[in-house]
Structures are given as C-alpha cells and as structure tokens.
C-alpha cells in the first residue's frame, strides 16, 4: 500500500475528520477551549462561532448581533446550571442521563467499524472459518410430473405411469402452475415450491431414471433427476457481498464488546447479595 492509499484511507475515517476540524479550530483561534471543571465560563470566538453555526444550520443565515447576544446569554445560563448541577451531583441516579451517556459511549465505539472496509484476507478468513455458511446449495436439475393430491388412487396411478415412463412412453400429469423441469435448482428454491420433504427425498434419488411417487407439500410426483451438482467451494468473488455484510455486523458487535470489556477492566464490580 502506497502512502497515497494510506492517506486516502485515513481521510475516510470520521474520527480523522473530527480531529482535523478540531485542530483547525484550535490552530486558528487563540485561546483555549473552556474547561468544564472550573468556575470560570469563557465565551470566546470558538464558542460564539459554534453558536452561530448552530443558528446557521437551523435558519440558513447568520444571526444578527441581537440574536447572537441572545444565544450567548442562553449559553452562559446553560453552562451555569449545567456545571452547578454536576457539582451538586444532580446527574447521579438520573436514569435518562445514565442511558444517554451509555448510548454516546456505545456509538463512539462503532463509528470506526461502520466506515471501515475489510481486506480480502480478512474476508477469506471468515469464509474459511465457516465455509458451510457460504457454500452454495447443491444444485439439482430434474423433471417432475405432478399427479395431484396424495390418495390410494393417485398412488396406484403413479405406479402405472412410472412403468410407462420407464418403458419410454410419454405421460401427462395434472395441470398446475408448476414447472415440468427445474434447471440447477437450489435446496431453498425446491423447498419453497415443493416443501422440505420433497427436497430431502430428491437428495437420495439415483440420477438418470424416473422414480416415484415422491411426496411433497402438494401431493405426489414422478421425478427424474438429471444432474446433481455437489456444493461448490465458496469463492470470495462469488460471496463477497454476504461475507462483507456479516463482517461489518460482527465488527460492530465486536468493537462494542471489546470497548466495554476494556472499560470494565478499570472497575471492580462487587455483587453483595444474600444467597
């Protein structure tokens, strides 16, 4: 990876944007950002700029001098109350504050994972770990003749028709909006159309000859399996989209869990309950 690639990748990181924006504000403006802990409330150009920005976001114009004064007055009031409330510990035991802080912490942890793009080697490793999940269904190509609902009469008919088919004669079925032939059908396609029992039954039918009756969720069928393609080994090119989706979902969950575990380490959790 070249320096340019690295730089481009870096530029996509939201955290970097945040840092750049912050640095620019800090560099250009003299003075320092206000410190929440201290009993001094400074309204400098950075603060006024941020207030004006928020105003601009809402009204798409800059505030007038009077409006800006009002915003500043409001800011000072906010800060006075906020800091005093923190000093008095009013945030303690306020469930809404607690939950709000938790959500902030959680979303900080996932921001990176949402924007990141995994390397091929990472994705390949996911496939290698659980190839079954990404393996293409076995594909079956077969002809089927639908005989109608399951009944002793249909079963007898099925035997007679099977003999005819094996003798090389053409045989008709019951008209229904069902394909007479399926090419390379996946198991889920077959189950969707015929039901699971039919899909399972076809798995064991010898290739190249008519068999039946095979039961389905629709009734009885005569079936000739022409080809059965073994499950193909998943290639990254074919399943990239699914792997990447899974990777992203897992990465978000992982970074949240790790972040929590890391912070948790700094705490002793003592459960004092009577047994």
């Amino acid at each position, binding site marked *: 990876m070249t320096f340019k690639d690295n730089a481009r990748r870096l*530029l*996509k990181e*939201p955290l970097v*944007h*945040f840092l*750049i*924006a912050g640095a*620019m*504000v800090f560099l*250009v403006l003299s003075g320092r950002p206000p410190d929440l802990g201290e009993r001094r409330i400074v309204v400098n*150009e*950075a603060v*006024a*700029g*941020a207030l*004006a*920005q928020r105003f*601009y*976001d*809402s009204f798409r114009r*800059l505030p007038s*001098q009077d409006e*800006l004064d009002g915003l500043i007055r409001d800011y000072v009031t*906010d800060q006075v109350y*906020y800091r005093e409330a923190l000093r008095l510990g009013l945030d303690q035991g306020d*469930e*809404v504050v607690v*939950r*709000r802080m938790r*959500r902030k912490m959680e979303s900080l942890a996932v921001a990176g994972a949402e924007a990141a*793009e995994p390397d091929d080697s990472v994705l390949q490793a996911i496939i290698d770990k659980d190839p079954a999940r990404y393996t293409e269904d076995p594909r079956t190509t077969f002809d089927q003749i*639908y005989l*109608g*609902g399951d009944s002793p009469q249909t079963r007898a008919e099925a035997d007679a028709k099977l003999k005819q088919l094996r003798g090389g004669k053409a045989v*008709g079925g*019951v*008209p*229904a*909006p*069902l394909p*007479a032939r399926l090419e390379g059908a996946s198991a*889920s*396609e077959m*189950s*969707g*159309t*015929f*039901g699971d029992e*039919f899909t399972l039954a076809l798995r064991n039918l010898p290739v190249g000859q008519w068999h039946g009756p095979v039961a*389905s*969720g*629709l*009734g009885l069928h005569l079936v000739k399996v022409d080809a059965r393609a073994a499950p193909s080994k998943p290639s990254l090119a*074919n399943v*990239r*989209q*699914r792997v*990447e*989706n899974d990777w992203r*979902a897992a990465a978000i969950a992982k970074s949240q869990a790790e972040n929590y575990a890391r912070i948790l380490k700094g705490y002793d959790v003592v459960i004092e309950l009577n047994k």
Partner: protein
Amino acid sequence: MKKALGTLALLLAATALVSGCDKVKQNVGSGKAEIKDTAYPEKVLWGDTHLHTSNSVDAFGFGTRLGPEEALRFARGEEVTATTGSKAKLARPLDFLVISDHAEGIGSTKALYDAPRMMITDPQLLRWYDMMHASPEESVKAMGEMLAVRASGKPNPAMSDKEAAAKRTTKLWNEHLNTVERYDEPGKFTAFMGFEYTLMQTGNNLHRNVIFRDGKDKVAKVEPLDPADAKWPEHLWDYMDAYEKNTGGKVLAIPHNGNVSNGLMWMMTEPGGGPMSAEYARRRAAREPIVEVTQIKGDSEAHPFMSPNDEFAGYGTSGWDQANLLGNIKTKPEDLPGSYAREALKRGLLIEQRTGVNPYAFGMIGSTDSHTSLSTTEENNFFGKHTGVEPSAKRATAGFVPGVNSGRMNWQSLASGYAAVWATSNTRHAIFDAMMRKEVYATTGSRMTVRVFGGWDFKTEDLKADWVKAGYARGVPMGGNMKAGGKGPPSFIVSALKDPLDGNLDRVQVIKGWVDKNGVAQEKVFDVVWSDMDGKRKLVGGKVPAVGDTIDLATASYQNTIGAPELSTVWSDPEFDPGQRAFYYVRVLMIPTPTWMAYDMVKYKLALPPEVPLRQQERAYTSAIWYTPA
C-alpha cells in the same frame, strides 16, 4: 463580531469536509452478478413492498429498535432478535423486499429520542422524550399522542424544524441506500430502494409507497419526498416525473389502504371537483400501475355494502370500515365505494367509457405494512403491526394501539399479505417491469401459485399440453388487455396450486365487472372450479356448497382432508357481450384455517371473547384482464 463570522466560514468548511465522507465511500453495489432473464416468467417471486423500520417516525415511537439491516436479513431468511427479545425467523425466505419508511420526519422520532434532554425546551416534546425512555408501554402511548396531535392538524412547531429535518434526511437516506445496496443480490434476493409518501388529509389515508427500479447511482440524486401540505398525489407524480427526466431511471407508486381513505382513494371526480379528465386519468394510470389491496390494517378488495351477493366479500373489513385511518372522521356509507378496489375497477370502466382513458386499470398486490422491521404473515409466526403488539398473552385483546383508544382492536389486524410477482428473474429490473405490466397478484399471506391467461380460443384440451407456453403465445397473462375482435366469448386458462406448507384450496372464482347498456357498472362472481365438484360438492340451487371445516381449536390445527391441492380449468364467459367493456380477475379461496388469534389462544392458554374471529379463509386476488370493445 466580524472575526466571529470569519470563524464561522472556517467552521462551515470543516463541516463540508465531514459531510463529504459519505460520498467518498465506494459504491458497494458494483460487481454484482449478471443474471439472465428467462423468455417469459417461469417462477413466481414473493415479497413485501411495505415495511417500516426504526427510521419511521411511528415505528420507532411504537418501540422498534431494529433498523433496515435487520429487516433485510430477516426477509432473506436469517434469524434476528425482535425488539421485544424473542428470536424471529421466517419459515421460508422472501425473494424481495422494499423498505418503505415514512418520508415525513424520517428519523425524527429517533432524533428526539437521541437528543440531549437538556436541549429539549418544548414541554410536549420533553414529555414524549421521557415517555419513550421510560418503558416500551410508555413509548407506545407517546406514539399514540404524537399521532393524535398529527390528526388534530396542529402539529407541534418544535417538531417541524424543517432545516434540521432536511439535514437528518440527507444523512439517513445516504446510509440507508448503502445498506440496501449491500443486501441486493441479483438472482437471489432483491432489495429495492423506496419510501412511503404518507399523504393524508385530516386523517384520510392517501398513502403511496414509492419504488425505484434503480441503484444508488441514480436514487441518491433524490431524497424521499415529504407530502408536507400536499392534499393530492400530483405533488408526488411531479417528483416522479422529475426523477425519471433527470436520472433516466424509473419509479412507480403503490396506493394502499383505500379502506381507511373515506372514499378519497378512488374518486370519480378530480381533486378540484368536476369529472375526471382524460389527462388526469392517464397520469394516474401511468404512475400507479398497481395497488396494495390487503395488509395488516385490513383488506380493501371488496365490501358487502357494494357486493351484497358476494358471500366472501367481508374479509378483513371489520373495524376498518367505521372511520378513516386516524379514526377522527367517521366513514359514511357513501364513502365506501371510493375505498375498495373492486368498486374502483368498475369506476375505472365508467371513466374510460366517458373519457377514453381508464385511471384505475391497476394490478393488485398484498404487503404487510409491518412496523416491526419483521415482514411476517404466517398465522403461527406473526409479529404484529408494531412492536407494542409483538407476541404476548395480552395482544389478542389489546387495542390496536395499546393504551390509546383508537376504537380498533388488535384482533382486527390481519396477518396479511404478500406480493406475488411473475418476473423473468429475481432482479430489480425484472420485478419492477412485472409490476409495471401488472403481472402480479395479492395474497393474504399464504403462498399459493396462481396463473391466469385470457384469450379467444383456449380449450380444455390446452391444459393437457404446455398451457403456460400456449397462454403467452395465444393470450395475455394477468394484468393484460385482450385485443378486441376475437370470435365468441373470451376464454380463460385459470390454474391455482396450494402453498406447499399451507391449507388446501376451496375454490377458484372469476370476478367480472362490466358496464351495462344503461351505462351502469355491474359485477358478478362466478365459481369456476372447486374441490370435489363432481362428487360431494355438486351445485345446490346453482350454489357451490361450503367446503367444510377441519379446524380443531383446542390445538389450533386443521386437516387437509377437504379441499384440493390444485384447481385448474378453462372458463369462458357465458354472459359475454362484445359491446360492453369488462374486466375479469381471479379470487382463490383456501379452506378454513386458524387465525393468529387462535394460535395465540392455544399458545398462551387464553379465553377470548366471542367477537374475536378464530377461523378464516385465506385468499389470493389476481390482477385483472381487461376487455375493451373495438
């Protein structure tokens, strides 16, 4: 001050840099498989065109915390954890999904929820904020209050900060399109981009779902359209025209829930009053080729008031025919004809007779309108309309919005429906194009397969050979127009097959609508094929005897010992008059099976009041085939 403003310019530059980051993201949709289309549709595809996630103002308020990604994973067959904590999985995956979050205030309830509490100054907003954070039950109540305020027509000005909303929409829409693009897998699972245009007149439902045929490259050039003060859908059609003109893409709109529109969904007149013009009719027909006729909030196919001779017309109308969507204006009998699809199809013929253009020659689909991110219609696996009524012992007897007196009960919710599409491949373009030509049908959730072809020379013998090929070669499929000039009455190949995992079929009906020689629209239901028709169910006084009932309520189960797995016939219209314009659509009825309430009753050992229906006949409605005299 001057210096402060200079600072401001700098800050704005920095902001631009930050917001630019979304655009840098690579187009993840590229490199998708090329799928070959078949010569004609061979397989029916199942989907939901109407699903809400936590991005919808009301869905979030009702409590759902599942977003578009979970919705897509669930639809394609994966297991997810529902908001209320239980595991959720479909018995069978869907083939496609349209996430249709409300454009209006998209993400705003979530924004209110996420906002720093100290920045909320409005007492009403603060109240809702605290309720949403208090508990799921309180959250549902808060949402009920928000909807009531909406119905009053006096929205809270603090909620309608347009600039903040616009910014939020841009960010959310962009993220949403990325997610949808990531889950669209041609040939396997189609994820459409779309939104709901929640047009409402003082609580009368004129909603439309908007679906794009295209990928993010085109769709990102627009944002979901908020109806704002619009009263009629021309505002939306202008937006659609502009989208197609500016991007070369394609977009369609699907009206839904005529049943709670108080007669405004399918009017005889133009919005401004006066008879509908050909130009208006043409525009509506072009922009709105299909209609959603069945969903959780009831069924809009037909109503006994207009169809007193149709013994199956009252399905899913209970509770929904008393008032408009928000329940603030009662429905008068004269409102009903403009609220139901069959009547609309008839009105379409009348308007066409006068103007030469049929505004209501629409196809029909079903969808869920679920607000849980979970697209469910299975009676024994139904997650309800919204998170407040996800599976629980209480939900069968709860109000439709628990804690809010809407006058509707949750048991009036249908576990319905899905959209069935005869497409030439499982891709955006093929499914969209099938919707445009109306080769689609609605079901109340059961996945029965239905084919219909109309022509002039179909014979019973056709069923013995490749009748699908013959159907396309010598006729038109559902949604088509019969060419005039054929000899004799039109004939129809109709073939229906049960869902392999569901109940047998009771009967197949053709519903004909026409304009008689006095210029009056008429309708008639023909039973054309039914189970055991030559045996135990011979006609009695010209009527098909009921199929029977095998339901065991003690176990919420049924037997497929009645009905038939498949019903096929070739039917020709015995009352055809070549001088009268007409439409024909097919309704398929399943044998009686238990409702979701019956399954709940067994699962939670409930005693339910007698008005709660425990049996029903699920059904399919196909798009019509139209005949126009030469």
